[in-house]
């Protein structure tokens, strides 16, 4: 059970970076600033 939670947590972190990277990348190739609303 504990092992499964660790695996799930690792996957969550990996997918988090994947999705944030995806957002940033596809904004970048459109010439747009992904962080425009955060500055």
């Amino acid at each position: 059970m504990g092992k499964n939670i660790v695996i799930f947590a690792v996957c969550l972190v990996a997918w988090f970076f994947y999705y944030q990277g995806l957002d940033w990348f596809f904004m970048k190739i459109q010439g747009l600033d992904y962080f425009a609303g955060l500055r």
Partner: protein
Amino acid sequence: MVTIIKQRKQWATFMLGMFLSISVLLPFMAVAALADDAPPQAAATAEPAAKVEMGKDVYYKTEGPVSGKGWQNTTANDYPTYNLPFPFSENRLLIWIIAQQHLYFGSFVLAVPIFCMVIELVGLLTRDKVMAKKYDHLAYTFVKISLTAYSVTAILGGLLLFGFITFYPMVFSYIAGLFKPVMHIYALLFLAESGTLYIYYYAWDKMSQGFAKWIHATMGVLLNVFGTVLMMLANSWLAFMMSPAGVDEKGHFLGNMAHLIHTALWNPINVHRIIGNMVFGGGVVGAFAAYKFLSAKTDEDKAYYDWMGYISMFLAVASLIPLPFAGYWLMREVYGYRQQMGITLMGGLLAWLFIIQAVLIGALFFAADYYLFAGMDRMKGAERYAKSIKYVLFLTTAAFLVWLTPHTLIITPQELKAMGGQQHPVVGNFGVMSAKNGAVNTMIMTTIIAFIIYQRANKQITVKWAAWGNASIAAMFTIALLNNAWVAIYGYYIPANVRVGLSVPQVMGTLTCLFVGCGINIAMLRGAKDMGPVLWGKISVRSQYALFVLAVSFTWLMGLMGYIRSSVRLFWHVMEIGRDNSPWALTHTIGFAANVMTFNVVLFWTLTLFVFWLGELGVKAVKPAHAPVPQPAIAGGSK
């Protein structure tokens, strides 16, 4: 025997050669036809005194020699009418009904060969002989249904042509003058498609073995090539009317046929229509299967038509998933072409029709999810996933509610005062594109989850990396849904141009769920233990009505969106070039338009039932060989 096989091979090779020649020759014929229309440059060089009038392309901004008469302004007298009572006094209404029926049937007969091609190929590649035969029979059933529909399409096409010539002679004369070579190629392609379809159907049994079967499958591909090109050519006419190019501001042709065809909206419409046709075709065949399931007398028939309904639904929903993205691209191009046009569609005169569209699309996702969950009744072991269904449905419902919330409401002055404006302070926020994108992506993701659950319903996963696989799928959907919600909310805090750009990563995120999620799931199902066979036919009667809901919703949606697309031109025949001066150059009320659409839906389904009935007439004596079989491989990892 050997001689017969040799003769068959020779005949098949000859047929293949003939069709390939036709397909190769067609572009040359097109070039030859276009060459006739090319400006006489050599003559112009020889006689420098003869000045060639030049015009500027309204879209491409290039210069070209003016040819043809250009648009001739019309008056109310240029639209010959019958003296019929309203609303039949409007030529537009008559054309609307005929065109819609032609489009419904055209869409159906273009989509079904795509399915036939895929299913026949699946049958060819399946090693299990019983299963292969079953797929082949299914493909044959599909094409049989479409054959009568093909004749109806052609008849409606003829009616539509006569309608154009008699009701809108000047408009038709202008369009035909511009697209003369395209129309000729269209007619030739129609001949090629008809020939291919008839051979494809009637030679099904004769070409059922060995090399001849591959030739037959190749003919299926050719049939689709012809059909798709046909549709694209017809699309060029309506795309020109919406976003003209290749002509000057007075509508004179400037000698470049590619510009005339390749207008701003041509490709988005092509893509949207191809996918839309597949969704619609799958829906109609699914309804046929449901009708046959409900009227089946034996368990064997029930099993077969249940399976057919599942395959049709699978194909329809698989096509439905990319459809919103194609629609989004089309709308983006509409805004890019004329911002005002986009506003009329989604924020102005026609915006309420998009709310109806939202409700219908929501109904589609609900029906698809319901059917998948109901289909789990066929499988032992599915009860393990029963508890997760409510969460999927909760998410779908929440997204659906956001999806259909309008930006502004039709309200009384008192309500307006109480609310402090036309926009509700809370739910009014859901009426903008940022929220809609988030909602539709959520609905698509929940449908993908439903499908993944369905795929593994009767399987016990045995791969060693099951813990990683399960965690990866669960984490991916969790993060994808959260990221989707984040992007939707973030869209409220950034400039409009950045917001529009956010839709691209949003789509890519959903596509990741589709391809990576389903990919991991299929990989996990390899070598999985069956907890029991899929009991085809053991499904609730209610589930079959979900297939009817899908089919009728598709039909309604097509009528609705077709009306929106066409009426966005408002009082123009050809946008900003040819003005509509008919007495009925007005936009009807939403109620009137909705009634016409509903009439069209009822008429189409009446005709379709007739087609189904006709298709059954000749086969009463022949019992199809459909032995009970386990599960279709097309479900992905189920076999």
